[in-house]
């Protein structure tokens, strides 16, 4: 950590940071360490927003941000580093403007790229610590391994709906993410679409836990959140702590590591990409036919309209639906097959067409024959048939 040759502070800086300087444990020394520190945040999203805002305000001298995304309307509910006027701009530009607005003293280094096995070690080089704000498993394992291989601590957090977890990983004598979770879940085990939701304040809370740990690590005050993981449940408003141990057999940070360089994390996680399309039919399976939104609208106006089977969750149906569609959530389909006529002409439909493809395959396996999938789901319906249907 930045302990030696800490930068001197100007009179303006002394005034700006006076409420830090007045804390005896923090003082001038702590503030100088912050100024000399270099922190890399992976992602300028839900977690990266509060991390960036508060580390900039606190006076961390150099903040690196890795993000290649563009601000969209669905980000604004929690990604408070971006504002409405930023929609459509690269997140890096928006984040840089916001952070400089808060504190022009801070140097912002942007990396407008996806973090990959090819660039990660190069990007991490020279940073004192990494704050992991990623939203997918391949990048999470990549960040972990890159931190371990580079000897850089990883301030980690992760969120799901109302719950969060946080820890400081990859300290020299502490556990890493692989010690805790040796392998990621195979894609598709947990239905992923219905997972998209998160309470907007949750990444705020968890991101500030990360920012707090980052400041503690840099200044050397307090007890880091190491060898333990903090679980937060917003609904119960409860924090819990679980023990986290370094696994002596960990493939990357154990005594005899088998991973000595970065690997192919997409392959490790068994996926082709974060937004993987519906898997192609496997050998012996007949591909399900797809129908476009406009063609479906026409058929629905015709003499023999097909049955539209909406396999989304009820809370999604409450947002928008196609008139006349029958709702059976994908998770309930198997035990509710008796509600459907095996001879009926069925078009399966979901938000964007992935879950409904799974539903159509499930129906085919159960003996249904007249099956099609609505290509692009209700999003395509909104684009091509009825713009009054909101997108989400």
């Amino acid at each position, binding site marked *: 950590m930045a302990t030696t040759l800490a930068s001197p502070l100007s009179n303006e800086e002394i005034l700006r940071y006076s409420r830090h300087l007045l804390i005896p444990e923090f003082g001038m020394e702590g503030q100088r360490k912050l100024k000399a520190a270099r922190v890399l945040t992976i992602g300028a999203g*839900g977690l990266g927003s509060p991390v960036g805002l508060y580390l900039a305000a606190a006076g961390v001298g150099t903040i690196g941000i890795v993000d290649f995304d563009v601000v969209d309307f669905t980000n604004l509910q929690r990604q408070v580093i971006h504002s409405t006027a930023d929609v459509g701009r690269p997140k890096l530009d928006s984040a840089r403007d916001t952070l400089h607005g808060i504190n022009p003293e801070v140097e912002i280094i942007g990396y407008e790229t996806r973090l990959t096995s090819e660039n990660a070690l190069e990007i991490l080089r020279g940073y004192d610590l990494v704050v992991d704000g990623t*939203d997918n498993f391949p990048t999470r394992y990549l960040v972990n391994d890159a931190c371990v291989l580079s000897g850089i601590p990883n301030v980690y957090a992760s*969120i799901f709906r109302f719950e969060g977890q946080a820890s400081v990983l990859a300290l020299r004598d502490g556990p890493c993410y692989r010690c805790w979770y*040796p392998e990621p879940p195979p894609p598709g085990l947990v239905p*992923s679409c219905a997972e998209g939701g998160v309470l907007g304040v949750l990444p705020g809370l968890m991101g500030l836990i990360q920012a707090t740990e980052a400041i503690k690590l840099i200044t050397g005050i307090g007890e880091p959140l190491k060898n333990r993981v903090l679980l937060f449940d917003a609904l119960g408003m409860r924090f819990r*702590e*679980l023990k986290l141990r370094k696994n002596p057999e960990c493939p990357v940070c154990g005594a005899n590591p088998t991973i000595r360089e970065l690997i192919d994390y997409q392959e490790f996680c068994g996926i082709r990409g974060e937004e*993987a399309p519906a898997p192609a039919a496997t050998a012996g399976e007949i591909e399900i036919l797809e129908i476009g939104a406009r063609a479906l609208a026409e058929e629905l106006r015709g003499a023999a309209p097909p049955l539209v089977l909406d396999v989304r969750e009820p809370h999604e149906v409450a947002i928008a639906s196609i008139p006349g569609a029958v709702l059976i959530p994908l998770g309930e389909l198997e035990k509710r097959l008796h509600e459907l006529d095996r001879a009926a002409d069925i078009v399966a439909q979901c938000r964007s067409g992935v879950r409904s493809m799974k539903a159509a395959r499930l129906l085919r396996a159960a003996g249904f024959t007249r099956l099609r999938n609505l290509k692009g789901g209700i999003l395509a319906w909104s684009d091509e048939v009825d713009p009054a249907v909101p997108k989400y």
Partner: protein
Amino acid sequence: MAVKVQIPAPLRPFTGSHSTVEVDGRDVGEVLENLVAAHPQLRPQLFQPDGHIRSFVNVYLNDEDIRYTGRGQTPVQPTDTLTIVPSVAGGSAARCCC
């Protein structure tokens, strides 16, 4: 003898939305077996086909990871809480894949 099992949000669809369930058992293995017997859809989420706990699912007895206390053979007391902690991807949860 029943212990409290805490079910994380991602797995609640498989326990009828319950966040805590009471399950009988003398050790962790029995408790988990009884848990998936009562909620069969949980089985593939928690166990590999060979019966081992999946490597992205951590099970804690109180605040200890059962991998370091004797795994399934770890005895349980009625005052204990078993917590299932699966790995969670979300950071910004911006991406909904379907």
